[in-house]
C-alpha cells in the first residue's frame, strides 16, 4: 500500500485541526497557542521534554481537560470542550501513558465498557468477543479476550488499550509515550500494528521523547517546548541530532556570568554506579568533579539518569560501586541526614512533592532541614528563632506571601522555590545540587533563581545544575557534562561545544569511544 502524497492529503482536508489551544494550571502555562492539522493516514510525532505540555495537549483534544482558549475541530466539526464522550464518538482513540484499564475486569469487559447503553438487560458478550478476535487478528494484537487484565503483561495491556480504540472504530489514534514501558520486541510489534492501522487509513499522533522511534514511525515531527510549538519538520528532512537540539532549545546565547577560577573539587564521584531499581536508568561508572566556584551543568534528555544522580547526591540512594568524596574525604554510610550534615544544599526537582510539606506553614518548611540542630534548644523547638528565620528569608529572598504562618500550599511555584532557595542558601553551603530549579517558573523568578546560583558560585560554592533546558545549561555553566542512559560525558569547558555537538552526545553518540578509553576525568 502506497501512502498518499501530501497534495492528496491536503485535498482531502485535515481529519483533525487544533486551533490556538492555550491551557494554564494556575500561573503555569502548559500549552500556549498551539495549532496544527492532522491529515488522513498521517503519523505526527509530538516531541518534547517532560513538562513540555504534550500530554496536556492530548488530554484537551480528548476532552479530559478543558482548554482556556482555542478549539478542536474533528472532521470539520467543532468538538465540544471537556467531553471525552464526544471525542470518542467522533473517532478519537487515546492510549494513555498510564493505562486506563480496570484490573478486575476481563479484556473484553474493558473493551466494551461504555460502548453499549448502560441500562439494558444483558451484555452481548459473544458478539463482542468475536469482534475483538477479528480485530486482534487484523491488527496483529495478540491477546485473549477472556483473560483478566490484572494478569496481563504491560505489553498485552497496551494491546488492550489499542483494541479499545479500534473497537470503537477510531479514525485517529493518539499514543502517549507508548514505548516507555515496552521491551524492544514489544515496541517492534507495536510499530507493526501502527503500520497496519495507517495502511487502513487511520491517522496517528505519536507522543514521545525517544528520537529513534520518532524517526522510524512518523511522517512529520512537531516539537513542543515550554508548552509552545517551536518547530515542525518533515521526518524525511531532519535528523536525530537536529531534533535533539530543537527539543531542548539550542539557540546560542552568550554565557551570563564572567568566568571564575575553578577551586578545589568539593564533591567527587569516582567510577560510581547505582543499583538497578528496575524503573529509572541507573548510573553507570560515572566520574564527576564539582569544583569550588564553578557551576557544573548537566545536560541530557530527561529520564537518562538525572534522577539517579540527584538522588545519590541527596543521600536518597547509595552507590553499588565506586566512591564518593566530599572535601577529599571518602564518605561512609550515606543518608539524607548525612548529606545535609555534609553541607550539601538540595534544591529538589519536585518542589511540591519532595521540596516542601504542603500543609506546613512557611516557618515549618523553612526549618525542615535544620529543626534538630539550629532551631533546637535542649530538645525543644525554638519557635521564636524559627519564625524570625522565616521572616528573614521572606524579606531577603523576596518571597511574596501574607506571612510566616501561611501554609505553603497557598504559594505560587516561584515563591515556594524562593523559600527553598533561601532555606538552603542561608546556610552558606559549599555544595549546591540544583535539580530543575526553574521548571515551571515565570521569567522573573527564573532570573532571580539564576542570580542566586551565580552569587553562590561567586562565593566559592560548587553548584551542580541539572536541567533539560540546554539554553539554561549553556548560559550558566562553567563546565558541561551530558548524561545519556546513565553514562556521563567528559566535562566540556564553557564555549568549547556547539549545541549540535551536545545534541549528538544527548542522542547517545560518543560514549562508546569514551568508555573504550576508560572513564574520563575532565
Amino acid at each position: 500500500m502506497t501512502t498518499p502524497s501530501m497534495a492528496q492529503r491536503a485535498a482531502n482536508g485535515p481529519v483533525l485541526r487544533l486551533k490556538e489551544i492555550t491551557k494554564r494550571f494556575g500561573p503555569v502555562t502548559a500549552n500556549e497557542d498551539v495549532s496544527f492539522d492532522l491529515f488522513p493516514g498521517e503519523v505526527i510525532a509530538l516531541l518534547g521534554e517532560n513538562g513540555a505540555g504534550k500530554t496536556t495537549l492530548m488530554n484537551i483534544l480528548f476532552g479530559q481537560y478543558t482548554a482556556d482558549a482555542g478549539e478542536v475541530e474533528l472532521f470539520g466539526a467543532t468538538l465540544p470542550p471537556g467531553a471525552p464522550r464526544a471525542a470518542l464518538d467522533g473517532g478519537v482513540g487515546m492510549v494513555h501513558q498510564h493505562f486506563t484499564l480496570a484490573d478486575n475486569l476481563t479484556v473484553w469487559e474493558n473493551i466494551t465498557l461504555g460502548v453499549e447503553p448502560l441500562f439494558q438487560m444483558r451484555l452481548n458478550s459473544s458478539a463482542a468477543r468475536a469482534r475483538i478476535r477479528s480485530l486482534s487478528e487484523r491488527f496483529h494484537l495478540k491477546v485473549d479476550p477472556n483473560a483478566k487484565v490484572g494478569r496481563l503483561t504491560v505489553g498485552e495491556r497496551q494491546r488492550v488499550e489499542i483494541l479499545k480504540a479500534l473497537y470503537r472504530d477510531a479514525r485517529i489514534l493518539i499514543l502517549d509515550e507508548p514505548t516507555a514501558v515496552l521491551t524492544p520486541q514489544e515496541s517492534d510489534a507495536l510499530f507493526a500494528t501502527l503500520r497496519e492501522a495507517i495502511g487502513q487509513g487511520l491517522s496517528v499522533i505519536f507522543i514521545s521523547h525517544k528520537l529513534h522511534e520518532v524517526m522510524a514511525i512518523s511522517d512529520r515531527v512537531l516539537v513542543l517546548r515550554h508548552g509552545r510549538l517551536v518547530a515542525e519538520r518533515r521526518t524525511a528532512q531532519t535528523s536525530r541530532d537536529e531534533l535533539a537540539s530543537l527539543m531542548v532549545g539550542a539557540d546560542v546565547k552568550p554565557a551570563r556570568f564572567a568566568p571564575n577560577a575553578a577551586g578545589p573539587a568539593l564533591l567527587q564521584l569516582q567510577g560510581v554506579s547505582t543499583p538497578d531499581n528496575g524503573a529509572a536508568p541507573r548510573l553507570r561508572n560515572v566520574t564527576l568533579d564539582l569544583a569550588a566556584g564553578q557551576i557544573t551543568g548537566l545536560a541530557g534528555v530527561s529520564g537518562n539518569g538525572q534522577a539517579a544522580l540527584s538522588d545519590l547526591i541527596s543521600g536518597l540512594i547509595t552507590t553499588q560501586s565506586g566512591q564518593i568524596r566530599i572535601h577529599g574525604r571518602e564518605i561512609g554510610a550515606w543518608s539524607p541526614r548525612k548529606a545535609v550534615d555534609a553541607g550539601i544544599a538540595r534544591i529538589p526537582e519536585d518542589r511540591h512533592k519532595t521540596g516542601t510539606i504542603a500543609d506546613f506553614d512557611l516557618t515549618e518548611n523553612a526549618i525542615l532541614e535544620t529543626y534538630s540542630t539550629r532551631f533546637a534548644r535542649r530538645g525543644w523547638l525554638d519557635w521564636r528563632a524559627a519564625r524570625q528565620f522565616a521572616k528573614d528569608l521572606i524579606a531577603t529572598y523576596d518571597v511574596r506571601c501574607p506571612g510566616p504562618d501561611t501554609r505553603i500550599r497557598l504559594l505560587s511555584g516561584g515563591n515556594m522555590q524562593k523559600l527553598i532557595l533561601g532555606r538552603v542558601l542561608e546556610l552558606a553551603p559549599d555544595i549546591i545540587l540544583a535539580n530543575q530549579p526553574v521548571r515551571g517558573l515565570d521569567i522573573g523568578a527564573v532570573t532571580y533563581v539564576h542570580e542566586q546560583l551565580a552569587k553562590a558560585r561567586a562565593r566559592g560554592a560548587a553548584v551542580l545544575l541539572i536541567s533539560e533546558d540546554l539554553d539554561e545549561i549553556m548560559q550558566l555553566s562553567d563546565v558541561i557534562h551530558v548524561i545519556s542512559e546513565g553514562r556521563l560525558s567528559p566535562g566540556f569547558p564553557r564555549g568549547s561545544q556547539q549545541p549540535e555537538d551536545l545534541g549528538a552526545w544527548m542522542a547517545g553518540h560518543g560514549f562508546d569511544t569514551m568508555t573504550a578509553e576508560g572513564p574520563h576525568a575532565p
Partner: protein
Amino acid sequence: MDILDILLSASFWAAAIRIASPLIFATLGELICERAGVLNLGIEGIMVAGAFSGWIAVWAGLPLWGGVAVAMLTGMAFGLLHATLSVPFGLSQHVVGIGLTLLATSLTFYTYRVVLPEVSSPPKIEAFQPYEIPLLADLPLIGPALFSQTPLTYAAFLLAAICAYTLYRTPVGLAVRAAGENPSAVAAQGLSVTAIRMGAVITGSGFMAVGGAFLTLSAFDSFFFDMVNGRGWICIALVVFGAWRPGKAVLGAILFAAFDALQIRLQQTAIGALVPYQLFLMLPYILSILALVVMSRRAEVPAALMVPFNKGER
C-alpha cells in the same frame, strides 16, 4: 449430642435464614457502594432510619409493601446526601459515613419522639407473616427451613440474584465494577464516574434501609431504639468476607446468622448452664473474625475503594 440435634433441626435453620435476611439486604447495599469505590459507613444509621420509617409508615396506615417502599426511599435520600458529599465533593468517606450514621440515628430518635411523644412502649403493627411456598414447603428439613419464610426473606434472596446478575451480566454492572477499580478507565470510555458512583451509593443505601425495615416489618412487629444493634458494622465485615461478591456475601450472612441462632440454642443446653451467657453472645463475632481472617486473605479489594475521582485534576 446437643449440637448435632440443633444443627439437624428445621427450626434452627429457619431461624438462621430469618436472622440472615436483614444482613443480606444491607450487605448487598454496602457491596454495591464499595464495588463502585465508595465505602458507606452510613450503613448503621441508614438501617436505623429504614427500620423506623418503614414501621411508622405502616403504623400510619400504609400497606406492608408500602412501608418497604418508604424505607427504601428514606435510605436513598440519605444515600443522596452521602453520595453528594463523598463523590462530587470528594470528602473523606470515613468522616461522611460516620457523620451520616450519627445524623440518621439521631434524626430517627428525634422523629420518633415528635411523632409518638407520650407512649412508653411503641405500638405494634401487623407484620409480614410466613408464606409457605406450595410443594417446596413440604420437603423434609429444607421445606420448613427455607420455604416457609416471610415474603421479605424471599425478596432478600431474589435481590441477591438480581444484584449478581446485574453486576456481572449487564453494562451498568460492568461500569460499576470498573468505577471501583479504576475510575480513569470509566472516564476514558466517555462515562461519568460521578453519575455511576452516586447511583450506586443511592441504590445501595436504599437496600440498607430495607434491611433495617426487615427488623420492624418482618422479624418483629415494632420499633425499638437499639434494635439494629451493630448489624450495619457486621455487614461491612460481611462484604469483606464475601470478597465483594454477592453470592459469597449471602453465604457469609447465613453463616453469621447460623452462629447467632446456634448460640441462642446453646444457652439452653446443659453446657449453657455452666458457661456465662455472655460467652455465647460473643460466639458469632469471634467466629466471624476467624472466618474473615481466613477468607479475606485472597480477596480482591476494589482498587479505587475510598479514592475520590476528580475529573481533569492534574
